[in-house]
Structure formats: C-alpha cells, structure tokens
C-alpha cells in the first residue's frame, strides 16, 4: 500500500473534493454526536462541569496518532508525506491564547460552530458571522502585523525531533498523558459537576468489569506501548529541507569556504572540521589536499559523520561538491561547506597563486610561503603563459614543519576537537 493515496497520485484534484466532502460529513457527524453543537456543553469544559471537550479531543488525537504510527511503522503510509503545518512559536502561542478567550466568550470553535448552525442554533450562526467579520478585519490589518506573524519560525518540526526522542516513545507518552487526563477529568466532573461516573461509559466508575470504554483505553495504551519499542515510523531516510533557509544561504554564499581560508586552517593545525575529497580513488591517490579523506558521493550516508560536525567538500570543480552538499543538507547535517572552486580553486589560489598586477609585494608576501608549505609555487602574472611545466601538482610528501611558515598570526598549535561539552 502506498499512502497517502493523494500524494501518490492515485486520484486527482476533482476526486479529492468529493473525498473532502465525505470526510467533512464524518467530521461533522461525530462532532454533533458528541454534543458539540451545543455551546453550553462545550463551555462547561471550562467550569469543570463536563469535560467532553477534553475527552473527545484527546481520544481523537491518540486514536489518529497511534493509528498513523502503526500504519507508518509497517510501511503502509509514508509519514513524511503527511503535511505538517510549520511552527511559528510566538504567533501560535498568541493565537492560541486569543482562541481560548474567544472560545469562552463565543462558546464555539470554528468547527463546532458549523454543526451548531447546521442544527439550528442561532448563536452558532451569529458566531460564524462574527468569525467572518474577524477575518475581514484581520485581512485589513495583516500588512501591519505580517512581520510578527512570520516571527520565531521553526519550520516543520515535530516534538520527537525537537527533543531528539524516539517518535514512538512520544506516542506512548501522549497516550499515557491523555488517559491520565481522562481519569482526572472524570474525577473533576464528579467533584464540580456532581456527575456520578456512568458505570458503562467511564474509566474510573465503580464497576469492576472491563467495559467497552475501558477496553478502548486499554487497546490505545497497548498500541502506545508497542510504539515505545517499535522504532522509527518514517520510511527510509527522512529528508526535510527548509528550502527558504537553504536558498538564503546559497544566495549569500554562506555555503562556501575560500581555499585560502582552508589553507590557513590546515596550517594552524585545526582539526575541528572534516575535509572530504569526492573524486575517484585514483585521482585521490595522485594528489589530495592534506588531511582530506576520500569519500565518493555514494558513501555519504546519513551516519558517515556526526550531524553537528563541520564538513568541507571538494571535487575537481564545483558540480560534484554541490550535489554532495545538497545531499548532506537533506540528510540533516548542520554545517556543510564547499571549498570554493574545488581543486581548481585550490591550485589557483593556494598552490600556484598568481600575483595580480595591483597587489602590493607585502600582500603577496604572505601568500608565497603558504603556497610553498603545500608544495606549490607562487607565479607571477607575466610568467603565467609559460608556467605549464612548473604547474605540476606537488608530490604527496610529508609537509614541512609548521614552524617554517611565517604566517604571523598562526599559533601552529594543533587543537584537539572539543568533545562532549
């Protein structure tokens, strides 16, 4: 089974509207069955008299959540294709508070107001009119609050990802929390609403039998427990890309490292990055930048390095490195960079830097020893035509001692990568 069906193209837009209509009928039907066409019943939630809102909402949430977990875990649904509303934390907190206040004042939420209006409740119809007025007003002020509305963007993010906990474990935690809330809610109904728990319809009633409602609760708890140990529900490698962020970084060139910069790092003996040579092994054997490891594109798996590690990529030119960069970004690596210009850039700016006409001698002075450090040779502009012979890649040999490099600002002390702090 390949679900979500719509996302796999099993039917088109027109058919999806018919499906929407029937899903809506189910939605409205169960809302009305629950008594949510009545504002009094809904509002009683906030006076602890009748906690139907809590019970219906959380039963629905844990039913859909556990069901989706099981279907995804067994490969029937591709969970990454189920649309997740992006998180904008502060606007969502503010909007939630506003909705809560509106709920107590108006007695409905948008969904329940529809079933209330459909069953003849005049207050439900007036509520909808108010909502439309609110939307019209919002449409007019939107341009002034658009910045707030788009603030604290966190992208599409789930609780398991945020807390770095297994998905199934959170499923189980939510089920347990919901069942606990149900028990507490029934207790509150008894205390504040004077409602004796219905022996067949409650979890904490006096009856000792396994009533259908208790069986439902047990069943959900059992699926939750299964989820806690059954592993990741995502199919294959999860690839979530914040395209906006990506575009911004590429646009700013923040994904590039200049060869000269890399040369400085190597000379300084920094080891807080991993340099990856993407070229075929035979090219790597002939020449590679010091400290680079040879990893062809296919071996860049989601676990070849820690996701927080700084990874520098290079190839002959930029194309292969750009492919790899995108792949690693998609796999969730946090800081991936491309050595600008690839190995060609390394040759042009580090190994065989050409002295530009405009450059002062002192500026070039610093470059020359760097080039020699890596076994190259600085070139002068007028000699460039005749350098074909001299521009041969240096032999792979142990580098000269760092002390021989008068870069001035370099401490030449290899620093150990910081771990676990």
């Amino acid at each position, binding site marked *: 089974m390949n679900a979500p069906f719509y996302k796999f193209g099993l039917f088109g837009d027109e058919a999806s509207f018919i499906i929407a209509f029937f899903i809506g009928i189910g939605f409205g039907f169960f809302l009305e069955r629950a008594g949510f066409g009545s504002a009094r019943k809904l509002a009683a939630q906030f006076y602890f008299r009748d906690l139907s809102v809590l019970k219906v909402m959380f039963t629905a949430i844990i039913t859909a959540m556990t069901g989706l977990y099981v279907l995804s875990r067994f490969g029937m649904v591709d969970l990454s294709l189920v649309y997740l509303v992006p998180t904008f934390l502060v606007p969502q907190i503010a*909007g939630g508070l506003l909705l809560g206040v509106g709920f107590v004042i108006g007695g409905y939420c948008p969904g329940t107001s529809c079933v209330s209006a459909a069953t*003849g409740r005049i207050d439900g119809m*007036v509520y909808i009119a108010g909502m439309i007025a609110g939307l019209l007003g919002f449409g007019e002020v939107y341009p002034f609050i658009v910045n707030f509305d788009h603030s604290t963007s966190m992208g599409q993010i789930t609780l398991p990802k945020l807390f770095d906990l297994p998905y199934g474990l959170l499923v189980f935690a939510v089920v347990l929390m919901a069942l606990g809330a149900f028990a507490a809610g029934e207790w509150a109904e008894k205390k504040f609403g004077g409602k004796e728990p219905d022996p067949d*319809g409650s979890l904490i009633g006096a009856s000792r039998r396994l009533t259908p409602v208790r069986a439902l609760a047990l069943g959900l708890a059992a699926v939750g427990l299964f989820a806690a140990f059954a592993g990741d529900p995502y199919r294959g490698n999860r690839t979530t890309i914040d395209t906006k962020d990506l575009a911004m970084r590429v646009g700013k060139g923040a994904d590039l490292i200049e060869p000269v910069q890399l040369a400085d790092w190597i000379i300084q003996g920094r080891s807080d990055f991993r340099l990856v040579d993407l070229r075929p092994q035979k090219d790597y054997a002939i020449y590679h930048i010091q400290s680079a490891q040879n990893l062809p594109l296919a071996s860049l798996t989601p676990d070849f390095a820690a996701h927080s590690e700084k990874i520098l990529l290079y190839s002959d030119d930029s194309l292969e490195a750009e492919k790899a960069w995108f792949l690693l970004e998609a796999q969730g690596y946090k800081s991936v960079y491309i050595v600008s210009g690839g190995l060609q850039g390394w040759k042009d700016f580090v190994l065989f830097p050409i002295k530009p006409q405009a450059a002062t001698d002192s500026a070039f002075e610093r470059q020359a020893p760097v080039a020699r450090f890596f076994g190259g040779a600085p070139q002068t502009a007028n000699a460039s035509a005749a350098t074909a012979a001299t521009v041969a890649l240096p032999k792979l040999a142990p580098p000269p001692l760092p002390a021989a490099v008068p870069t001035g600002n370099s401490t030449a002390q290899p620093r150990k990568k910081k771990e676990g702090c």
Partner: protein
Amino acid sequence: MNSKLHTPRPYWNSYWAGFGLGLVLLASFVIMGRGLGTSGAFTTAVAAAVHKVAPSHAENSPFYAEYLGDGTRSPLKDWLVFEVLGVFVGGFISGVLANRLKLTVEQGPRSTTARRLFFAFVGGGLMGIGAKIALGCTSGQALTGGALLNVGSWAFMWCVFGGAYAVAYFFRKQWI
C-alpha cells in the same frame, strides 16, 4: 405520533465520539496526506467574496492573495471548502437522526438572548483573528497537529486551554 420520536436522544459517550472522530482524522491522513481544518475554508470564502467586490484590493493584499490561488480556477474550488460543506451536512444528518434539530439559542440560565448573541459575535471575531495568527484553529492545529506531534500545535493547544481557563470566571454568568 409517538412523542418519543421527538425527544432529543442523549449524546454519545465522549470516548466513542472521540474514537469516531479520530478514525475520520486518520482516514484523512491516509487518503489525503493532510488533516482536518475549518478556519481555512472560511478564510478562502472571505477572500473570494472580497475579490468579487473589490478585485484589485484583494489581489494587492498579501493576506487575501494567498487564498486566491493562481486565478486559473475559482478560489472556492478548494479542499477545505468542500470539507467544511461536509461538516455542515454531517452535523445536520446527525442532528436529524437524534431529533436535535431545533431553532434555539444555547445559553446558561442566567444569560439573556441579546447578550448571548452579542458575545457569540465577539467570540467568533476573536476566534477568526486568533486562528489566522496561529495558522489554524482547534481542528487544523490542535486536533490535526496534535496527532502529528507538531511542536506549534501542542504549544497552541495548551494556550487555548490556558486562555480559556484564565478568563472563564469572568464569563460564568453566560454559561452556568
């Protein structure tokens, strides 16, 4: 005529109603790859209406423009619009089957109809604004995002309950 036919039937047990709702939500995930929603449909309807009355105003507004689509088809040809039409029909069917169809105003014993309707309008307005700031309402955020363990949805959900409980005391005369 049997009078029993006309007495409203009791509501379903909350857990079973919730279970049914959960299965509908699950069906939506599996069939469509998306959850339920309500406020989005009303926004689309409002945007379409504004576009009808003042086309250039709607097209120039960054808010309405998002809901108008690319202009190749009516903005009302939208998944959520059809879903919400279904919500009205489903609610109506359930109401008919349970003898709960009645032209009335839902309010507490100490409330007056005028005040109740005024508050219903104000509450609806606040919800309309809040739902747009939060990118969804109780169905699109709390219910759908809750089941997907969406970070923003859970923050939103706690704030809905928090906001409601915080002010409930001041509006008690309307309900209890």
